[in-house]
């Protein structure tokens, strides 16, 4: 019941996102265009600009949220996310390098692959450093290392941006996150990665459930912890890496969506991983809608919009949790 409502709400977000803009297209018109019964300016705007954009916003939001949910559980920290582990910074650095050098070995897959590689590399670097510092691999140490690494990588990115000359605007805008100028090919690639990633992640639901009870407890219950942890972190890095390479850095969705989802759907990962993808996707579409309509015709970076909503939310969670514990 809740699941149906949630998916319906996401569809509504998608229709609204596609319909509202400098030129409003009514849901009826959208339906007519999609079934090929209406043509003209509205049709071409919808098909070539709005739909790819809205679709990409949804996919990116969904990927970030699913990966955020997993990170929170694997690291047993409600404030953990792909950002805290440096996944996004690593992904953005390599994606930026790809954009600057024009490197394209794998065609359309170059950017997401580089993003993934960058994200994964930073995570493993963070975990490698952690292993050196603390042989029991405490999650707090992982998070701390990730944060430090993430700041460091961001600094490199800033230097790179400052020196990049004619790409400066492009890079800065990308770092703030944007869903403009997307193609159906991009959407398809992102969609495939999202679907595969989410399915595998959801299939590890019971393992994640057990991990939230503590790592030793999970092992004692029969979970092959090292293997599962590696798989889960690598998959989240893949999802975040791909999302970052297509849309730039959009923060806070991966923090907000999992919390909202847990509040509505409880704690079981088999359910909340896919549902947080839906909620995160829907939220991202609305955030993007706000980004391009609030100060129209000027467009705000969507990362700023999510952060404006997300930062107070983050604080609320933090203090709410502490209040609840006391």
């Amino acid at each position, binding site marked *: 019941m809740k699941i149906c409502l949630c998916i319906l709400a996401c569809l509504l977000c998608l229709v609204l996102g596609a319909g509202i803009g400098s030129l409003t297209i009514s849901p009826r018109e959208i339906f007519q265009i999609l079934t090929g019964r209406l043509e003209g300016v509205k049709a071409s705007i919808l098909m070539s600009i709005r739909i790819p954009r809205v679709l990409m916003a949804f996919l990116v939001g969904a990927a970030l949220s699913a990966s955020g949910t997993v990170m929170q*559980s694997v690291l*047993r*920290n*409600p404030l953990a996310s792909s950002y805290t582990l440096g996944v996004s910074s690593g992904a953005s650095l390599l994606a930026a390098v790809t954009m600057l050098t024009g490197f394209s070995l794998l065609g359309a897959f170059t950017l997401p692959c580089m993003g993934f590689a960058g994200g994964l590399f930073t995570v493993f670097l963070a975990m490698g450093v952690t292993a050196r510092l603390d*042989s029991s691999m405490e999650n707090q140490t992982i998070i701390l290392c990730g944060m430090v690494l993430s700041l460091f990588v961001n600094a490199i990115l800033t230097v790179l941006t400052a020196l990049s000359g004619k790409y400066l605007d492009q890079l800065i805008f990308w770092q703030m996150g944007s869903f403009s100028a997307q193609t159906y090919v991009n959407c398809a690639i992102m969609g495939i990665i999202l679907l595969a990633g989410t399915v595998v992640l959801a*299939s590890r639901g*019971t*393992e994640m*459930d*057990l991990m*939230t*009870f*503590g790592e*030793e*407890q999970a*092992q*004692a*219950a*029969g*979970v*092959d*912890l090292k293997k599962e942890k590696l798989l889960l972190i690598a998959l989240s890095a893949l999802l975040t890496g791909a999302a970052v390479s297509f849309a730039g850095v959009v923060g806070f969705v991966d923090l907000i969506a999992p919390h909202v989802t*847990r509040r509505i759907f*409880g*704690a*079981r990962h*088999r359910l909340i991983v896919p549902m947080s993808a839906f909620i995160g996707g829907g939220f991202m579409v609305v955030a993007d809608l706000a980004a391009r309509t609030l100060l129209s015709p000027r467009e705000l970076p969507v990362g700023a919009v999510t952060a404006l909503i997300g930062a107070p939310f983050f604080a609320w969670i933090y203090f709410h949790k502490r209040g609840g514990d006391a």
Partner: protein
Amino acid sequence: MLQLSGVSAGYQGKDVLFDISASFEPGVNYCLLGPNGCGKTTLLRAIARLIDYRGSISWNGTDLKKMSRREIAGHIAVMCQNSGSSFSYSVYDAVMLGRYARMKRTLFSGPGEKDREAVRNCLERTNLWELRKRPIDQLSGGQRQRVFLAQALAQDPDVILLDEPANHLDMRHQIDLVDSLHAWTADGSHSVIGVFHDIDLALRFSENMLFLKDGKLLAQGPFAQAANRQFLQNVFEMDVVGYMQASRRKWDEVS
């Protein structure tokens, strides 16, 4: 039968447990006793294969190091100690997680009829069936302890390991826990190995004692044989018997 021979273990290259040999029979409960830092918890963690050890630990002749996590979990369960999950699971879902090692393994396999039946059974035994829909973070300490017990029972192991299971429970709940464990081992095929601080509670739990000090196993066997006044004085560095007798005199005065 769980058999330890020459087990040494420690952390960061420094041993805290030296050359422990012991065997644990089905149908018998065991208490691990000793002062703080004597290696009791480390021994439990080695038996559950949560830390590395030298020497050998085997279950019915098979070395634990040759078994997968899942296989070990089929024989040995560790009863959860701390406050539990960072997220809010229902009692039912939490106990169902104990079935992990017993569930069939396919990509989307969920709990089967057998698992649901086992969970219902464990919930009824621990008087939790009425509370099954409650989130565990809203339970009292005693109820939560019962959830963790049910979780361990749902794993359907041969041995349950307990590390100071009662240290934040009031007396009635301590006794309840000990009694439920007795009920579980009464069929003669299960056993519990527990670390206890409270010697009185340990005695109520089982007469079979293993005394550890400074990482070495000093004595094992039935309480009256393994321990005497001088021995307990050595292990705990105080006159345990004198202390207990002094308490006893005060209790005798209570009408």
